[in-house]
């Protein structure tokens, strides 16, 4: 294997696949990057079994085909700090991969290598190819917005044991729904697909792959993102980037039952002013047991907080509301998370009463449900 590559293109490509490098690999090969030099392109692949990434680089000059698995972290760091414009990557006979950049040479030990492009590495996980019609295609920007609108609500643990760690990706008759929840609040967003070949698909995805797409999808060419529902994976393709996320085999909460259709109390508020008031009174909440009370009365919302022994804060903002009034307690962090992700300047809050889920409408087909807090005893 021998090829000449533009250093910056190589660096950027490595950054795209970097998330798939296992930082604490259970098998050494999972901490590596598989480089495949074909006749007209070089393909980089990584996989830590939760996520797999494949990236194709076209601007290369391949002298000899072949493949090698090289220590990932070292390769990323070395290429970042090389100075020349181009890098020559060459597989040596002694199981080493040589990187020549101007005056400098680095030799990295290969974990596996071969010269026959048809042969595949034994230990490196096999990554499916995304051939044929995708199950769905969606506008790239729309999908990136969907991810950022739901990802924040997912549980912040990484145990691979609980459905709420994942994001629900559902497609029904050409409409794509993403749902994120940690049991206490839930965000749901819906967008139409550009094309769809299957009518119904539903997967709970580990969020890592979505993080990867959010980070690198933007920089990829093309306005379209293709989604493939594979066996226990979901594959995404945008431009030259293909990402695969593992599906969690867990029962996802039935979101349709959670999100109230509508509430007795409907309050419309200015997003920015509500955020400001919440941030203000949050300073007088206990950090771990933060509670704010929303006191809603005609055309007015009071935002109250008290920190025992420190003081209390009370803020008021104008809202659009007609009704008998209502007071409910919330974790302010949950409210602020939602407001930060809102798409519109005006948001709507719908509530039945202080003990039932509060629904925030934060944009078109974007709902955020937060469970109010209650006092024990």
């Amino acid at each position, binding site marked *: 294997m021998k090829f000449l590559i533009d250093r910056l293109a190589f660096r950027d490509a490595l950054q795209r696949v970097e998330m798939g490098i296992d930082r604490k690999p259970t098998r050494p090969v999972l901490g590596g990057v598989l480089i495949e030099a074909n006749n007209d392109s070089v393909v980089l692949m990584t996989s830590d079994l939760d996520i797999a990434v494949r990236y194709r680089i076209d601007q290369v000059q391949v002298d000899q085909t072949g493949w090698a698995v090289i220590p990932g972290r070292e390769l990323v760091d070395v290429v970042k700090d090389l100075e020349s414009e181009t890098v020559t990557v060459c597989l040596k006979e002694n199981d080493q991969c040589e990187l020549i950049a101007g005056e400098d040479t680095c030799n990295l030990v290969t974990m596996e290598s071969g010269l026959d492009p048809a042969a595949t590495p034994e230990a490196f996980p096999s990554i499916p190819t995304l051939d044929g019609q995708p199950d769905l295609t969606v506008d790239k920007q729309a999908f990136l917005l969907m991810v950022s609108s739901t990802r924040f609500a997912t549980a912040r643990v990484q145990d691979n044991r609980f459905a709420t760690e994942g994001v629900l990706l559902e497609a029904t008759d050409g409409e794509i729904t993403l749902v994120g929840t940690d049991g206490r609040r839930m965000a749901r967003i819906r967008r139409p697909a550009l094309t769809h070949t299957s009518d119904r698909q539903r997967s709970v995805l580990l969020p890592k792959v979505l993080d990867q797409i959010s980070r690198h999808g933007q920089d990829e060419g093309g306005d379209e993102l293709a989604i493939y529902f594979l066996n226990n994976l979901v594959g995404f393709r945008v431009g030259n980037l293909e990402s695969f996320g593992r599906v969690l085999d867990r029962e996802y909460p039935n979101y349709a039952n959670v999100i109230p259709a509508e509430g007795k109390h409907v309050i419309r508020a200015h997003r920015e002013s509500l955020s400001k008031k919440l941030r203000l009174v949050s300073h007088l909440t206990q950090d771990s047991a933060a509670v704010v009370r929303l006191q809603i009365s005609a055309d007015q919302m009071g935002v109250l907080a008290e920190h025992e022994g420190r003081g209390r804060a009370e803020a008021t903002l104008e809202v659009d509301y007609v009704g008998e009034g209502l007071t409910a307690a919330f974790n302010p962090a949950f409210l602020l998370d939602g407001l930060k992700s809102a798409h519109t300047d005006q948001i709507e809050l719908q509530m039945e009463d202080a003990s039932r889920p509060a629904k925030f409408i934060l944009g078109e087909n974007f709902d955020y449900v937060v469970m109010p807090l*209650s006092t024990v005893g």
Partner: protein
Amino acid sequence: MRNHIRPLDPIVIDQIAAGEVVERPASVVKELVENSIDAGASHIEVLLQEGGIRRIEVRDDGLGISADELILAVSSHATSKLRTPEDLEAVASLGFRGEALASIASVSRLEITSLTQDQEDAASILVDFGKAVGPRAAAGGRGTRIVVADLFAQLPARLKFMKRPATELRHCLSWVERLALAHVGVGFTLKHDGRILLEVAASDDLDARCGAVYGVGVAKNMVQIQRQSGPIVLHGRVGPPESARRNASRVDIFLNGRWVRDPRLLRAVREGVKEFVPLGHYPTLYLALSVPPHRIDVNVHPQKTEVRFRDERLVIGSVVKTLQRGLATAPWATRGVGVVGKYDAPNSSSLSSNLTRPAWPGQVRESHYPPAAARSQPGAESALPLQRTPGDTVGQVLSVANTFLVREVTGGMEILDQHALHERVNLEELRRDLRAGVVMSQPLLVPSLVDVGKAELDLLLTRAEVFAKLGVDLEAFGEHTVAIRAIPARLTRLVPEKLVMDLLEIAQEHKSASVDQLMEESLHSMACRGAVMAGDHLDQDGLRGLLARGADLPQDRTCAHGRPVRVFLSLEDLEKAFYRRV
């Protein structure tokens, strides 16, 4: 051939009985010294040779035994301490069974020389493995001198079980130390092969005795604890966490002056110090319990190290509470543990004078928690080695390996363990909420379902009321599933399913626990689960927030599992480390 049944020879009876009372030189030392104490001695001298295997001599200046009673003294079940069965109900002396001397006499060469106040000449008796010779006139001062030589020499079966002299000596020393701790007012000297190993004057107080037994350094930092609950009076001294050991070798519990080793009491000790001493460790502890004699039964075991309590729960509960309350205000922090320099006693610290007055107006913030300050021991005052900095004035905080926080504090620097601190913060805040009755719970959008066994489900449901007080709402969902409807609002990082598994584990481990105990255990678990872990990244705001919360706590020196939260290095320590100070 048929073996005929016939009565045993009295000497054999005594030798068999000796197996229960006398198992090694240390038991001889214990029995003899206890006799001396019961005889009102003011100074007792113990002389040993070869760890007591060759020779044990105990001399006292007590009442003595008259010549005509000497022969009775070495026969079994003869005692001056009991007369009627009623006396047994309220045993106040150390010995009472009347077995010890006879037993020792049957397995050694025993010589007693004694002089009472009313006699002119001392008398002595010699018992050679059960065969008495005497009494006859002898030379000697007031009191009793007993020499036990060649213990078990004629009983190879017992001799085989003797350990090396050094081991036997250690056991003897332990017993003399225990007795010295228990009997303030009596002087003790222990010599081995001519070398003094322990010397306590009759006038030495408890602190001096703790110094002699546990070491002066440990004794200086011991915390005094005291409590009376009903008829039970407790007082004691607890050593600082760094003196804790993995075994109970430094735990000395005295019940009405008698050293006891009772597994239930030891468990109570572990429970009581749980938050202050690393998991699985025992503290250095002197604990004296006074319980009216009729409420206990010491006549359970010949060695009398086991006891039965009429009201066990009360006693055990008092021990746990005394330790918990006493230590909550302990002046020793974990500063200087295993680090450069030594921990200065608060009084001698050159820093203490700076610390007693507030360095800035905001420091009077302590007044939010008057009970904590008011509870602290006299003498410990505010010379606590903790400098509490109000959250908003915390300077730059450095995070090391996303695990430790380093910051400058008045008079030096402090290293904190972020998980331990957060855990402690959570625990104290949970307790505070619980006391104030303002526990917030976070109902879930959809009840989380967890599959458990039938028995597990029943167990959880029987405890559901306790959990509900903490903000956890559990409900049966079919026969094998539990539904979680609400969780404590504080635990924003926790997955509800995990919480249920934790609670189930706690309920299983503490099946017979009281409501309070179960609640405490659950709080501990929740505090830990809800805390940031070592390695979790916290930004500057997060760090400051955590430290500010830490500053509000009445107790923040150890985490809920007893590991230290913070280590303080004074300027003095640093100067010493860099040889700027000699």
